């Protein structure tokens, strides 16, 4: 437990979050969408109920109006958010864990294991994901698990590549060698020397994987290839398209879902700024100085500023 506490308090994530208030905003949005939708679920009723006439616009009674089948769009949006975010996080995490394991094994062991694994990774990267997903989804029986399987199978390769590179660079880093020479146990080496680096990369990859999962999941469902019994972002849009929402001018059917998707993906991207900055110190150094400049736009590139150009300068 103390290990965890120390890691968090000393962690560069703490600092990074403070430097990037936008990331905190992103985190807040994510929590709002995720927890909000889950907490609201028991209170909104069944989104599949046919409650009123189809294609009613937004009103005080039905906040988001009704869709082409007479269902409540507000209920569908909330339920869809909970369902899609849940699946996205689950698949994103799975992709990252699997990819990280494969990448770490490949990078750390080297020799022929590495050769095979990285060749496989490269091929998985280069074969286009969505067409493969479409073909797989078309052949797999429709159901809740097929989408999960298809996404994980097509999405692990990127993380594997990242972690292989990480394992290679860490393997040769001097401090690992020094620690090993000094007789430190492997566990200590892993947890204190390698962990912070790995954690940041893991977080970054997990965020990227989740963004990919959202996009791919919505795309497949939009094509009618997901579990059509679920209420999710993708199925909402599928029905919107099927019911010719555009041609009837019923924008309220597809706009709320789209906004939720964009909000979730943007929030994830914002959070990743902070996480990336942990691994990239030069980004932070510039940030720190730029915040203190009196006139940031007039600053000449490649010229060190003088004290008078900076707020709260040390006058030495």
């Amino acid at each position, binding site marked *: 437990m103390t290990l965890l506490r120390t890691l968090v308090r000393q962690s560069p994530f703490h600092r990074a979050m403070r430097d990037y208030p*936008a990331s905190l905003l992103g985190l807040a949005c994510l929590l709002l969408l995720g927890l909000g939708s889950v907490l609201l679920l028991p209170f909104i009723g069944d989104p599949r109920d046919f409650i009123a006439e189809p294609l009613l616009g937004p009103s005080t009674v039905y906040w988001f109006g009704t869709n082409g089948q007479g269902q409540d769009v507000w209920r569908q949006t909330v339920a869809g958010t909970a369902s899609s975010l849940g699946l996205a996080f689950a698949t994103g995490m799975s992709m990252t864990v699997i990819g990280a394991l494969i990448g770490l094994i490949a990078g750390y062991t080297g020799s022929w294991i590495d050769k095979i694994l990285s*060749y496989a990774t*490269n*091929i998985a*990267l*280069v*074969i*286009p*994901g*969505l*067409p*493969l997903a*479409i*073909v*797989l989804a*078309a*052949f*797999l*029986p429709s159901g809740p698990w097929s989408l999960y399987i298809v996404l994980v199978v097509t999405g692990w390769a990127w993380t594997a590549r990242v972690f292989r590179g990480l394992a290679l660079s860490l393997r040769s880093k001097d401090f690992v060698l020094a620690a090993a020479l000094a007789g430190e146990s492997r566990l200590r080496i892993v947890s204190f020397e390698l962990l912070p680096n790995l954690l940041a990369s893991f977080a970054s990859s997990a965020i990227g994987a989740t963004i990919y999962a959202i*996009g791919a999941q*919505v*795309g497949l469902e*939009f*094509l*009618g*290839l997901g579990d059509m019994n679920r209420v999710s972002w993708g199925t909402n*849009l599928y029905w*919107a*398209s099927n019911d010719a*929402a*555009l*041609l009837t*001018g019923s*924008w309220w059917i*597809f*706009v709320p879902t*789209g906004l939720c*998707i*964009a*909000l*979730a*993906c*943007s929030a994830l*991207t914002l959070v990743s700024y902070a996480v*990336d900055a942990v691994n*990239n110190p*030069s*980004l932070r150094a*510039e940030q720190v100085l*730029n915040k203190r400049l009196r006139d*940031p*736009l007039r600053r*000449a*590139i*490649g*010229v060190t500023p003088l004290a008078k150009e900076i707020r709260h300068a040390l006058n030495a």
Partner: protein
Amino acid sequence: MIKILQRLVFYVVAIFLALCINFLIPRLMPGDPMNMIFARFQGQMSPEAIAGLRQAMGFTDASMASQFLHYFTSILQGNFGVSTSLFPARVGDVIWQSLGWTVLLAGVSLLVSFSCGTVLGALAAWRRGSWIDRVLTPALIFIGSFPYFWLAMLLVYIFAYLVEWFPIGHAYSDGSKPAWTFAFFVDVMRHLFLPALSIVLATIGGWILSMRNAMVSVLGSEFINLAHCKGLSDRVVLVRYAMRNALLPNITGLGMAVGYVLAGSMLTEIVFSYPGQGYLLVQAVRNQDYPLMQGLFFCITLAVLLANWMVDLAYYWLDPRTRGQNI
């Protein structure tokens, strides 16, 4: 040189693997694909026709190995079988017709998105704190968070339905015949604009961000500092020293982006009923037209691998370190 050949071998292996996937999937899935086709035609095919189709698609009683050999040789001959939904059109012919439109849409969108995104990204990194960095970049990233097809739907709603500046769908006006005339060219451009715009909007944010990050990383290098010491102008440092180096990791990204853009353009084609490979693939899936589906998957994969290979070549040309000779 050797590296280029090695990459070529890699791509050949990848294509082969794609072929294997194509071959194995229908045979590994539960159920007999022939039954599905039979069900689709609702018993309107004579037993001989069914047997003939089974032969043509290679679902014979022969061993897996000889089935594969048969499949492999027919592919090499360009025989992808016969489409079941567009019976009796040959898969190869159907694919060939739609190829051009997909290349046009995906190609134009990718080029515009990459070039504009790269330039804007470089500017955003150079002038951190400017409106490009603080306003435009986040705005485009937010816009890029919407699914491709959602943006397409929005654009159709606003520009084709509300204000009717652009057509709602298809590649050219219904009723006009394709011809190499200026009028037809303009017509095609009008139909291309919204789909291409939706893809560009969806992807440009990503390019801006990755170029910006690459630039920031490069701008922290020693040689940039020395370039400043040498008294070089901002423009020279930006273009010749920073951009030329930051471009390299982005070119690598370009190869992988081809796959993504093709995927996204498929979804866009649905919304616009644009007659490209993606539109066809989805129709094939909906109609359970397995031969067409497999043929399209193979073709799309081939296109992506080809594009990747061309990007690799471009990279070798741009980065002298890959040519590694020693004086």
